[in-house]
């Protein structure tokens, strides 16, 4: 059984309850009070301690365009829990695993903070958690725990959405989906969610709203996404890649390139050192 999220952006009202519920349940530190001026988005991006991020696309159409071209889109972004996950493949410690719910999970006690998963995510989701994220204004600063415990819970490791592994374990809905007041975030069996999402696209089309599913039935190398989206604009408008590429697909060309160079130089070296 694969559990995942269906995030229907046409239902999102930008309330950020998902962000707050995620922070609260997972005991993640606040992001601070920085004003970006990017519409209502002061969260900016997903990060090591920010596992839901509501994007706001607010664009006014010029006056000579029909007013329906004004854009006021909201989308709650999250880790995609890819079928073929770049972070999982890159991890050299085996800290990143696929759990029994088919979700991509980072075991914080195994992670060694090497940071290779960070540039290996084609969606820019996973990030290293800095110690300062926790120690500044948080209770972990001097709680008397051993250094080992402190590293596991207070930074120095990679962090991203766990799809509320702990809540799923006891049969609860993940915090963000539970808190979402409009069911823009739906949690459940991925096959069921996909069927529901396809019906939703058809329903919207009948109402004259063009939409499509991002991460369902895709032919790209990361495979289908266990956390997929219903979008009404280009992926780039939501800061999603048009076509994510699984980093390990670059390995055959890379190894070949290295092997050819090494073979050529070994031959040259043999000619130079062993000719006599």
């Amino acid at each position, binding site marked *: 059984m694969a559990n995942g999220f269906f995030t229907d952006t046409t239902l999102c009202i930008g309330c950020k309850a998902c962000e707050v519920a995620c922070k609260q349940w997972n005991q993640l530190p606040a992001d601070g009070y920085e004003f970006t001026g990017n519409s209502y988005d002061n969260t900016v991006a997903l990060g090591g301690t920010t596992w839901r991020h509501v994007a706001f696309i607010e664009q006014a159409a010029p006056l000579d365009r029909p007013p*329906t071209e004004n854009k006021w889109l909201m989308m709650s972004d999250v880790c995609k829990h890819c079928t073929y996950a770049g972070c999982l493949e890159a*991890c050299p410690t085996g800290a990143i695993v696929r759990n029994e719910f088919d979700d991509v999970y980072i075991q914080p006690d195994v992670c060694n903070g090497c940071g290779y998963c*960070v540039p290996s995510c*084609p969606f820019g989701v996973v990030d290293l958690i800095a110690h300062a994220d926790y120690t500044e204004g948080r209770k972990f600063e001097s709680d008397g725990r051993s250094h080992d415990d402190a590293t596991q819970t207070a930074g120095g490791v990679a962090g991203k959405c766990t799809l509320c592994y702990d809540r799923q374990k006891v049969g609860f809905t993940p915090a963000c989906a539970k808190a979402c007041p409009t069911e823009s975030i739906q949690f459940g069996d991925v096959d069921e969610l996909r069927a529901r999402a396809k019906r939703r696209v058809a329903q919207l089309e009948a109402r004259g709203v063009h939409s499509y599913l991002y991460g369902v039935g895709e032919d790209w190398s990361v495979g289908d996404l266990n956390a997929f989206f219903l979008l009404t604009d280009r992926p780039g408008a939501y800061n999603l890649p048009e076509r994510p590429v699984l980093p390990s697909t670059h*390995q055959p060309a*890379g190894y070949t390139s290295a092997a050819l160079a090494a073979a050529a*130089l070994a031959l040259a070296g043999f000619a130079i050192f062993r000719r006599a």
Partner: protein
Amino acid sequence: MSAQRGDISQLDPDRSYRGASDGAGLPAHAAPTYYDQPLLKKPHWGWEVVAYLFLGGVMGGTGILVALVDEDGEDAQLARSARYLAFALAAACPAILVGHLGRPRRFLHMLRVVKFKSVMSMGVWGLVAFSMPAATGVAVQAVDDGLLPPWVRPLPALVPARPLLGVLGAFIAGYTGVLISATAIPVWAIGKRFIPAFCVCSGVAGACAANAAVLALTGGGKRTFAKLERLELVASLSELALLLGFRRHAGELGKPMYEGPRGDKLRSWTMGAGIVVPAIINLVPLHARWKTLLASALTLAGGYVLRETLIEAAKASADDPKAAARQPE
């Protein structure tokens, strides 16, 4: 109403929704990016990783030299010093990685799994494997030099140190390039056919330079220096050709590496002072210790700047949402 709503984006879903990250085909008022916020996360790697990529290259190249050089012929002194250098670097590299991770135990976390899909896992095991023949090779040498008692000799002699050092050295010099190419960072991913190759070339050139410097200080034959200089010339000119070829191949995506102050530094330090100048110095028919040391120092500095440029360019590349939205296949 229905028709108007359908016009919202005026985009053909198959063509434009999925293939217009550069803004082509968008209404004039549609922003091509999300407030220009980065789409990707950048690597957090600092000087430790730069130093490891650099020293790993020199170490791998030195392994290749150990395999190539005849230990009984006129290059015997090179064979000897290369073994010591390979061992010293094999000891230094894990220490640098431990420094990067923070604590020794974190390095051991990488030894709990073997993952063929993870280039970093392969690299760690390559490094561990390399350290074995590097240790046995240096033990044999140390017995011959009278630094270790003779009874040590039979044990390490069981390991075919030289061929192993050659093969594993080639792997170590190259895998770092594969490691960074196999990511989502546009400037790295577009370089999958170039970066691993010029990392190998830079590693071999750096190994020739480092070993020549060691020989210049400890004494070596004139003909040995000439051979090292010749191999260094082949390696570094190949590196230069690959660097120039990569610039053409990468196009827009290569800008973080080749333009601005970073590009100037790459041109002046790696291509100029690190490749062209040592080649000219080595052409001068003069056999002097200072000449070798100067040429070696420049080559090695160029190799370091190349790794630094690769890491820093990635950070700028990850910050470019247009490049990240259309990822190189």
